[in-house]
């Protein structure tokens, strides 16, 4: 059962990721990204990170992806969409990426991962997560808040200036 669930998640994630990577249509790629995000969210939930899975869904699938799709819509013309996501440099990149895969595979296979997950309880981590965020990781947490704020303002400023120059 576990194997099955993991297999489904794996296939969904990697499959949609492949579409993202290889599709020539940007809209397709963007939509395929939903699959990847869902798969990753599933992985999280499977790995006892329920809260993170939910956050993944809300932020990525619900927020970022919508943004991306809006951006795609705003910047490309529909009639070009069939080839809106052109690629380049395949001759150089493909060998490099393959080499990378080999290297990482080498690192992976150097060690034997034996630890099994069976028997480990599924406990909600959200309480512990909240405690940690407000104790040990308080400073990074606050920093992230500031960064978020800055990003918000920055985005507003960048777009506003754009409006201004339009006038």
């Amino acid at each position, binding site marked *: 059962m576990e194997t099955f669930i993991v297999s489904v998640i794996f296939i969904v994630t990697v499959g949609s990721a492949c579409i993202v990577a290889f599709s020539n249509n940007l809209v397709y790629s963007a939509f395929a990204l939903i699959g990847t995000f869902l798969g990753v969210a599933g992985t999280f939930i499977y790995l006892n990170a329920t809260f993170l899975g939910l956050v993944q869904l809300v932020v990525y699938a619900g927020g970022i992806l919508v943004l991306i799709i809006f951006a795609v819509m705003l910047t490309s013309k529909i009639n070009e969409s069939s080839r809106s996501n052109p690629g380049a440099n395949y001759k150089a*990149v493909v060998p490099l990426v393959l*080499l*990378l895969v080999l290297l990482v595979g080498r690192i992976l296979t150097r060690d034997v991962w034996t630890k099994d997950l069976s028997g480990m309880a599924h406990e909600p981590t959200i309480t512990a997560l909240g405690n940690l965020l407000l104790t040990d990781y308080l400073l990074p947490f606050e920093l992230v808040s500031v960064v978020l704020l800055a990003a918000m303002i920055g985005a507003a400023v960048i777009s506003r200036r754009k409006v201004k120059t339009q006038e």
Partner: protein
Amino acid sequence: MEDFIKNYCWLIPVLPLVGFVFNGLPTAVGIKLSRAYVYTVACGVMLLSFLMGVGVFFTLKALPETAREFTNLVWPWIHLEAIQLDIAFLIDPLSSVMILVVTGVGFLIHIYSTGYMREDKDYARFFTYLNLFCFMMLILVMGDNLMLLFVGWEGVGLCSYLLIGFWYEHKPNGVAGMKAFIVNRIGDFGFMVGMLALFWALYNTGHATLTFTKLKTVVWFLQPQTILGVSAVTMICLCLFVGATGKSAQIPLYVWLPDAMAGPTPVSALIHAATMVTAGVYMIARLNFLFTLSPAALGAVATIGAATAFIGATIGFAQNDIKKVLAYSTVSQLGYMFLALGSGAYAAGIFHLTTHAFFKACLFLGSGSVILGMHHEQDMRLMGGLKKYMPITFMTFLTATIAIAGIAPFAGFFSKDEILWQAFARAVHGPKVYYFLWALGVLGAMGTAFYMLRCVTLTFFGTLRANDKKTRELVHGPHKDHHGHHGDLVPHEQPWNVTLPLVVLALLSLVGGFLNVPYIITHFFGGHSSGLFNEWLSPVIPLQAHHEVSSLEWVLMFKSVLVAAVCMYLGYKAYTSWQTGVDRFVKKFPRIYDAVYNKYYVDEFYHAVFVRGVLLFNKCCFSVDRYIVDALVNLVGRFGAVYSDIIGWFDNFFVDGLVNGSGSITDFTGAQLKKLQTGNIQHYAYGAVLGVVVVMILKILM
């Protein structure tokens, strides 16, 4: 009164200083003072000072003879271990006499100057200087230590400089002042050396001091000391005497005094006859206890004195400028004073100083009166017959002339005869060389009588030659209208403020001699005094042991008078009825005449040897400085420059080449590498990944 005098005798020098400040400060800042103010202040302070001096005299007189000495401390001057010098004034009989001479004659000359300088534009400046001079002179005679005496010594030198060059716009006047100061400085050089040697010689005995009262008690310790194998006392005395030759115009440093006549005549009278030039005499008399210890030094003093007395007198024969005659006469008379000092007769020296102050001041002031009367004509060849025009001047001048010639009972007789007798007496009892010195003295006295009468005759007798065109051309050269004065010159008598001092001084030179009647004469009249003056000075200058009353002294005395009288007669005749004979003599022995007329070419000699020498030497020094020392510096500089050029070249080609090389390598590499900068973000990402891959490969391999 007595306490007042004792506590306030510093006022005597300070009063003229007050006058100096009151007249000098406004003049210095450019305020034009009224003449009445100037002379009231200047003469007023001198009068007060003189009255104080009189007060001092009587205060001293009231004291018992042994207690006639007190010191008025003003403030400590320099106190450093052994050096204990104060600004303090010593009052004793010697300084009281000097104070009276300085303030008394000074006051008279101030009065005279109000008349003499009445038309001068720098009236206030003149009196300023004159007051300053009196201040300095009083410091000189009142200072209680050698260093303070030196302050006055230099101070009067300064005033002399300022006053000789008073009419500085005429170049020779300034030059004469400069000459006076520098020649005096040469003397001061000796003075300083003497003072230093004295101090440290005493220091070695453990009694270092420069204060006169203390010196007197400790000089005995000097006896065994030597400097360079010579007795220390002799060395010190000789050095101090060098100072005296400078200030008192003795051979070899007398050359400045005749030139000093460039100053206004009152100055010549006050500074260059009556007071300043006698400072050397005063100094040696003050240090009599020291000089007495060294017969050798005394011999030197006497020799120089006698030689100066004789040479000065001979030069006087041929001078035509009335003031020059008097100047050489002063040189000669100062020689007598030194002869007295050198004979151990210090009191006689001081006495001659006093009488000389009277009659020589009178003579100078008289000549001043004549010069004024002649409208600033000083050449005697243009004078003559002035007796008629200026009777008071004539009478006073004549009185003083008789006094200086040494005719009894005028002042000069007593003082000069005393000197000659003392020299003779010393020859009898001591070194025989004094006979020779005495003989020189007598010859000088004869000369004095002769040239003084020549002077009187040329000036006052005969007829006025100033309006004689031929004589004028002879004197001033052709086609030169003298001083722009047109028409005939008519001499005239001077107002009261000029003649009054003349009369007073003439009276003093008439009766002054009776202050010090020799023992032999008092003895003849049944007295026992060895002279009031000698006795008065006895606390400072011990009385000479009484020699036996000898008929020889009488003989010499009469001989002096006789010789003087004869020479006066000759002098009179030679320039009245025997004029042609004199001219023939001059024509026959032109060399002798020229030598005398040109003062034996001493000035020329000094100028050629010393002045030229120094000027040449300083040119050499400066050349050395510029062409050797500085050239070396510049050479080092230039060497540095050349060296740095070489280094610079090396630097350019090698060191900098290296630097530039690395620079251009970088440049080249950069030019190649910049092609990687494509601006294409994929390429950058690719680069990053490539880096990761490389690192991973390395990680795995290692």
